[in-house]
């Protein structure tokens, strides 16, 4: 096999692994952002965790 | 401290203790090798020290998860954490007890397995000596793994995975020293002294790490 094959393979593998990483991080970030937005829409906010009386929870 | 040593020793010797099972596993692993590589005595005597060392490494890993698990189950681990003795010393004593209970039997059993492997007397002696010096290092490294995984319900396999890469230097120098004793050009002392140094190094690092992990594991 020619050297070009090995070069293409190693760049391919490096690219594939990097793309998988980028894709994973990106998709993970989108999913988390959507979950946070859903929680926000449901009226559950982070600040209410620190406030002593969680009034908003009763609504 | 002496009382703790004695108590741990008794526990490891008594029914279901890991000591006997470890030795049995050691013998079984080494006895299985010839079925894999064939009964050629020359080949066996050549790879003998390596096989005995790998068998000892695997059997040393076998009993590790029990090191702190039983203490955690019956609550005596909390007592050890509250003691006024430094926890590092307690862990060191526990490591020693574990080694006497699980490591020393492997060292004693190794000459017999050396005979199975058709090794000559010098090779058997060298392997036994390197095992005697090297297995404490395995126990000390293993203590960190055992302490880290103590809260996991089935941590045994995980402990082996975590500990094996760290045990590579011990294996390398143990086997090198055993071979150096048989093969003429290579000197025996340098790898052996490095093995001693590794054991002493882990005698400090292992209990320190394990004590830190035990303190962090319970809350």
């Amino acid at each position: 096999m020619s050297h070009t094959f090995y070069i293409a393979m190693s760049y391919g593998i490096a690219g594939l692994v990097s793309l998988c990483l980028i894709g994973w991080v990106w998709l993970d970030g989108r999913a988390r952002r959507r979950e946070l937005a859903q929680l926000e829409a449901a009226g559950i906010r982070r600040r209410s965790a620190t406030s002593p009386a969680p009034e908003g929870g009763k609504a | 401290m002496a009382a703790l040593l004695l108590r741990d020793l008794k526990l490891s010797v008594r029914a279901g203790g890991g000591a006997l099972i470890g030795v049995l596993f050691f013998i079984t692993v080494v006895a299985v090798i010839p079925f894999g590589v064939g009964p050629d005595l020359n080949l066996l005597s050549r790879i003998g020290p390596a096989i005995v060392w790998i068998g000892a490494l695997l059997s040393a890993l076998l009993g590790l998860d029990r090191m702190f698990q039983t203490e955690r189950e019956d609550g005596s681990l909390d007592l050890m954490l509250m003691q006024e003795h430094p926890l590092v010393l307690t862990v060191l004593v526990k490591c020693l007890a574990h080694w006497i209970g699980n490591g020393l039997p492997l060292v004693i059993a190794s000459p017999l397995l050396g005979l199975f492997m058709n090794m000559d007397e010098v090779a058997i002696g060298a392997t036994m000596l390197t095992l005697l010096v090297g297995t404490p290092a395995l126990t000390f490294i293993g203590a960190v793994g055992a302490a880290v995984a103590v809260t996991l319900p089935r941590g045994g396999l995980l402990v082996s995975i975590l500990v094996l890469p760290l045990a590579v230097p011990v294996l390398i120098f143990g086997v090198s020293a055993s071979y150096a004793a048989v093969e003429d050009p290579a000197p025996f002392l340098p790898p052996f002294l490095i093995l001693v140094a590794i054991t002493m190094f882990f005698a400090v690092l292992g209990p320190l790490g394990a004590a830190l992990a035990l303190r962090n594991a319970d809350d």
Partner: protein
Amino acid sequence: MSESLAITKLSDLANPTRFLGLASRVLPWLSAVTAILFAAGLYLSFAGEGDYQQGLTVRIMYVHVPAAWLSMMCYTVMALSAIGTLVWRHPLADVAHKTAAPLGAAFTLIALATGSLWGKPMWGTWWVWDARLTSVFVLFLMYLGLIALNRAMDDPGKAARLCAILILVGFVNIPIIKFSVDWWNTLHQPASVIRMGGSSIDGSFLRPLLVMALAFTMLFFTLHIAAMRNEIWRRRVSAQRRMAARMAGDKPGLTTEMST
């Protein structure tokens, strides 16, 4: 007293909310710089001509060496964050070394795969038990073990502290492993293996190598910051879900409170 005050100030400065703000400002720039560096690095590495001895396969070096460098730098980053976890109990440090482990494993995998692909035309086999390949392989196993340990525990704080201890023990061990593997390799050195050219790299190879190394490093930092942000979000989501569940559980509990 003043020292502890300074530490709380410092940790205020690096608290997760501030980190999120900083991350969302920095990330677009970082990804742009990474993309530009990769474009430049790839152009340079394919424009350059091959080594007379190794032929065109020297191009593999431009991805192999940066990945190998990152596999070690990532462990250093993890060790530093582990100190942060154990000494200052900083939640951001927990997140940092947890998210760095998969990245490190991925870059180590790249280094191993490209090393093996380089070895086939150079040495004639896919894998030689060369000192460097072997120690990188041991490093790969350590990364995987750390990921497994972190995933095995439910409580993120405890998992972070226990992993941090193991990371530091591993970090102290890495020089010993490297030294022992070198020793072992010189004992068992097979005659057929061609030793690589050492540090005498020609200048025309050095430039693309440096650019690619920089590009990979920037890629690592971009991904690491993004992954840390994801992890913080994930923890917030689960914390808020727990809180929502607790508040939902409070409503039936209200009657018992009134009866007492």
